[in-house]
């Protein structure tokens, strides 16, 4: 028993000298920050449940009432627009950013820093400055492409670069891509075969993570779409909040829940399930 006591006190002594904050302090910080995040959400839920007589699911069930279809049409239209924009942004990530990142890593490693700098630019420039610069391009591009959605999608492709690039880069760094490519090439594989059979499966986690982050960014984007007079989900939510604030809050909550689920899925995918046999 005395041994146990000694070990326990030793552990306490170590803990007291540790650089980590004490448990009550850490708990307090966590509770405060948790409340900071939770209170607005709780308030939103409470607000969405308010009725003339108290609380109920009236506004939630109203979403599915055919009588309200005309009122809520802009919201569903905005949702479809946002999802389309997200798909275009993902296509840009997979078809342009992924090959570029691989090319830089494999063939031009000296350009890694340059690529990192370029991909971080969209996050460093304020949205309003981005819009001022992009507005003339947007106008000219619409005349050529004849689709505002596609052009805004291209802009969103730029907007998601900082997030998607990091997700892809992390997955490329996690495996020895140059050696895998060299091994496949030395076994007689052509470049398309190397890309399809080796690189895409090996980098699957990074590609999925980059895609989900792109969806999350695009679903939450308001400023650029609003300033360019496009009706995406966030613009529609703000628009409808003037006439029906309950539905606006409900859609905001649903969008938030969707993004939270996406991030949780990314977390699961990014966690390697490795069972190592030491044989």
């Amino acid at each position, binding site marked *: 028993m005395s041994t146990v006591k000694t070990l326990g006190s030793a552990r306490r002594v170590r803990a007291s000298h540790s650089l980590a904050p004490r448990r009550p302090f850490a708990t307090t910080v966590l509770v405060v920050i948790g409340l900071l995040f939770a209170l607005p959400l709780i308030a939103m839920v409470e607000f969405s449940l308010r009725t003339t007589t108290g609380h109920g699911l009236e506004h939630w069930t109203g979403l599915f009432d055919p009588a309200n279809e005309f009122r809520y049409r802009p919201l569903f239209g905005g949702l479809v627009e946002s999802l389309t924009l997200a798909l275009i942004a993902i296509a840009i990530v997979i078809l342009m950013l992924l090959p570029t990142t691989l090319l830089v890593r494999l063939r031009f490693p000296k350009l890694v820093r340059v690529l990192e700098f370029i991909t971080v630019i969209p996050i460093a420039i304020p949205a309003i400055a981005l819009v001022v610069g992009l507005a003339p391009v947007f106008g000219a591009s619409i005349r050529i492409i004849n689709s505002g959605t596609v052009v805004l999608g291209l802009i969103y492709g730029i907007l998601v670069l900082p997030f998607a690039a990091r997700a892809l880069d992390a997955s490329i760094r996690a*495996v*020895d891509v140059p*050696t*895998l490519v*060299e*091994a*496949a*090439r*030395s*076994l*007689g*594989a*052509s*470049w*398309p*075969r190397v890309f399809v*059979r*080796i690189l895409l*499966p*090996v980098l*699957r986690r990074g590609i999925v993570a980059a895609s989900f982050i792109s969806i999350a960014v695009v679903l939450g984007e308001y400023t650029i779409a609003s300033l360019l007079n496009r009706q995406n989900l966030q613009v529609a939510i703000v628009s409808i909040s003037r006439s029906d604030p309950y539905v606006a809050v409900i859609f905001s909550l649903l969008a938030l829940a969707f993004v939270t689920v996406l991030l949780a899925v990314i977390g699961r995918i990014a966690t390697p399930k*490795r*069972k*190592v*046999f*030491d*044989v």
Partner: protein
Amino acid sequence: MSDPTPTAQRSGVSVHFRAVTKEYGAQRALNGLDLEIKPGEFVALLGPSGCGKTTALRSLAGLESVTSGELLIDGEDVTRVPVNRRDLGMVFQSYSLFPNLNVIENVEFGLRTRKVPAAERTARAQEMLERVGLGDFAERYAHQLSGGQQQRVALARALVTRPRVLLLDEPLSALDAKVRTQLRDEIRRIQLDLGITTVFVTHDQEEALAVADRIAVMNAGKIDQIGTPEELYRRPETGFVANFIGQSTLLTALVHEGRIALLGREIDLTEPLPEGALARVRVRPENLALESFEHGEGEPGRVVTSSFLGSLRRTTVHLDSGLSIVVQHSAEDTPEVDQQVRVRLLQDVVTAHVD
């Protein structure tokens, strides 16, 4: 780009490096490298880091383009042939197994690119796995294997396509000592079985001496000396080779009437040197004997350190003449630090040179 056609099982082919130069900007990694490898031969490229051995191997594989010179495999100029059409098998230092494929799929990969029918593909892959002792591991993934097993799979994957030449880029470096020795011997056994021409890059002289038919010692982008392990060990032609292969001590002595005085003895020279020249002689630890100070012969000195190496012992002695020398002797003799001893040369004839 089409995939290469299947190749038939064959014995080794010749490999020629002809005046191969590789430059990275102002830096020259290969400096007019000339090397001829006979069919079925196992040649080790040995040298310190930065000597160009890996660049030479990667150039032969097609993973690096050469600045000038020619690379010939079986008489065919492959200098400008892309890597996937050279029909070579390569094993890398890092295990390089495809993590998304299991063991058998990894081994079948090269056969798929050659469009070998499924049944034959599986049979050949399984046979090669049996050959490397991993017949029961076909369904496992890379992360479920130890380092040695992963390298065995990489070897099977490289060999299953029956390549013209097998290239080994420090395949044992990442393994622990025991597994390294086992796999080294296995590689040699399989190479002899298949008769495949093999180029093996290593910085470990013991590995090279143990498995290679010939060793090319590389220095500053070209070959300093090439020969059998025995030739390189016993008759190094340059100071660099003598210093790099095995352990030795450099001694100097004046040439007088075709002989030199070394460690208290008059020794003959294998080849004559000019009278009065200052000859430089490299003496290996096993060519020296440690003797009692009171009753023995040779030059006196004091023990500095003594290391137990299992069946033998290596002792560093600081001679009274001011030189430190390493002596290899029986593990039964256990000299103490600072003990007075004598060092005697066991050879009657030595190879010396004059700079």
